């Protein structure tokens, strides 16, 4: 009667029955339908004890509190800036959140952030109606000058960062690029043009093979082949343990 109908790490489609009976608990991405637990989206099953949850494989970025994201200034407002960050909703950065400088009434705000500038910022407020505030007031947050922006699937971001930033650390080490990864799936790279290309390729490989094991070693070998730099995956202290962007 009470049993799991799927295996761990199996890909399931919306509506598919994952388990029957009341002894299992529906986790995120699943729902209870009378006696059964069903998938609520396309995803990969993850069974943890009595809880069945789904890992999303696709989808847009949904803004979450405290996430560090890379955004683009799309408008200058009366008292702040409007930031777009690859999500259905745009955010507002107020003067107070942007800088601790004293700014005269009526000053030209484009001196600080102009249209089209990219910033690494943190989400500090999300309302039920998805009105979002972002801030520059945390260590490591900055305007991103030069370099290039690439787009990846937001679901793959944890793999790109790696455990304690080990994966992105490896790419930095090998290519000597400056890299910032936003939780929203935007990645900023800055370095020598040749190394930027290699770093971008490495990130694309990670994105494509995100669900496969042994990825760190494969990327290390690939980087060695391309750059000649021998790298090891070491959780580096400079990367924040959580909160996303490096």
């Amino acid at each position, binding site marked *: 009667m009470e049993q799991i109908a799927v295996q761990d790490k199996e*890909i399931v*489609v*919306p*509506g*598919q*029955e994952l388990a029957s009976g009341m002894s299992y608990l529906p986790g995120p991405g699943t*729902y209870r*339908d009378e006696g059964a637990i*069903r998938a*609520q*989206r*396309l995803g*990969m099953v993850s069974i943890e004890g009595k809880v069945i949850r789904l890992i*999303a*494989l*696709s*989808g*847009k970025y*949904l803004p979450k509190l405290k996430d560090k994201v890379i955004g683009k200034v799309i408008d200058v407002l009366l008292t702040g800036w409007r930031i777009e960050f690859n999500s*259905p*909703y*745009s955010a507002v950065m107020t003067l107070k959140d942007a800088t601790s400088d004293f700014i005269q009434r009526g000053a030209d705000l484009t001196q600080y952030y102009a249209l089209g500038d990219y910033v690494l910022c943190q989400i500090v407020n999300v309302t*039920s*109606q*998805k009105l979002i505030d972002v801030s520059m007031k945390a260590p490591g947050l900055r305007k991103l000058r030069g370099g290039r922006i690439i787009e990846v699937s937001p*679901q793959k971001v944890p793999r790109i960062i790696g455990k304690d930033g080990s994966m992105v650390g490896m790419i930095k080490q090998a290519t000597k690029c400056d890299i910032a990864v936003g939780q929203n799936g935007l990645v900023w790279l800055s370095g020598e043009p040749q190394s930027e290309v290699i770093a971008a390729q490495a990130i694309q490989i990670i994105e*494509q*093979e995100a*669900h*496969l094991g042994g990825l760190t070693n494969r990327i290390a070998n690939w980087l060695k082949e391309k750059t000649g730099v021998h790298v090891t995956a070491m959780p580096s202290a400079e990367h924040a343990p959580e909160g996303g962007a490096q």
Partner: protein
Amino acid sequence: MTYAKRFDGRGFEELRPMTAKVGVIHRADGSAMFQTGKTIAYAAVYGPRDLHPKFMQNPSTGILRINYNMMPFSGHGERVRPGGSRRSKEINMVMQNALLPVLNLKDYPNAVVDVFVELPQTDAGTRCAAITAAAMALADAGIEMKDLVCAVAAGRVEDKVVLDLNYLEDSHEDGADIPVAILPNSGKVTLLQMDGEISPEMLKEAVTKAKTACKKIYEVQKEALKARFATRSA
């Protein structure tokens, strides 16, 4: 008159050969192709994203917007005039009604999920193919759904109940065409239309047979969605 044999030689309850593929349009957030016989539907999903014009925004939930389009060269020699028509407007509405019951867009207030369905080649059953493709594309886009949606046309040609009508049967003078959309796991019906005349007994028979047929379509959908991620691991 009796309809002894189908025009294309199929069994009366046999569907046309089906193929499905997910992830066919790379720039889209989700996409799928569904083909049954000579009818082909491509669906692309964009969003959830910012909705304009602003008066269409709904602060309590995201909305679903469908754009069904038959390509000019897709019909039977007669050029289909590009752009919206009375017919496409109706199909947009019934598709929205067929798909919305499984979607959860509550997390996306004021936003829109856009579904574009293009039909490069048609041989009847387009709204069913469009719904089937759109359901796969929505799942591929990672949108929360309670279930998939499968659709097939049932109908009558002279004295027989038939499934998945082609254009010859659909346009037959003595018959009826009944597109049905089913939620495969709960068996609920989200689309039921009819063009033509049918007796109550035959209608019941047609809907029952359509429900059974939808199970086959569901398997095709399921396989295509799983294959999307299986090929990546290869």
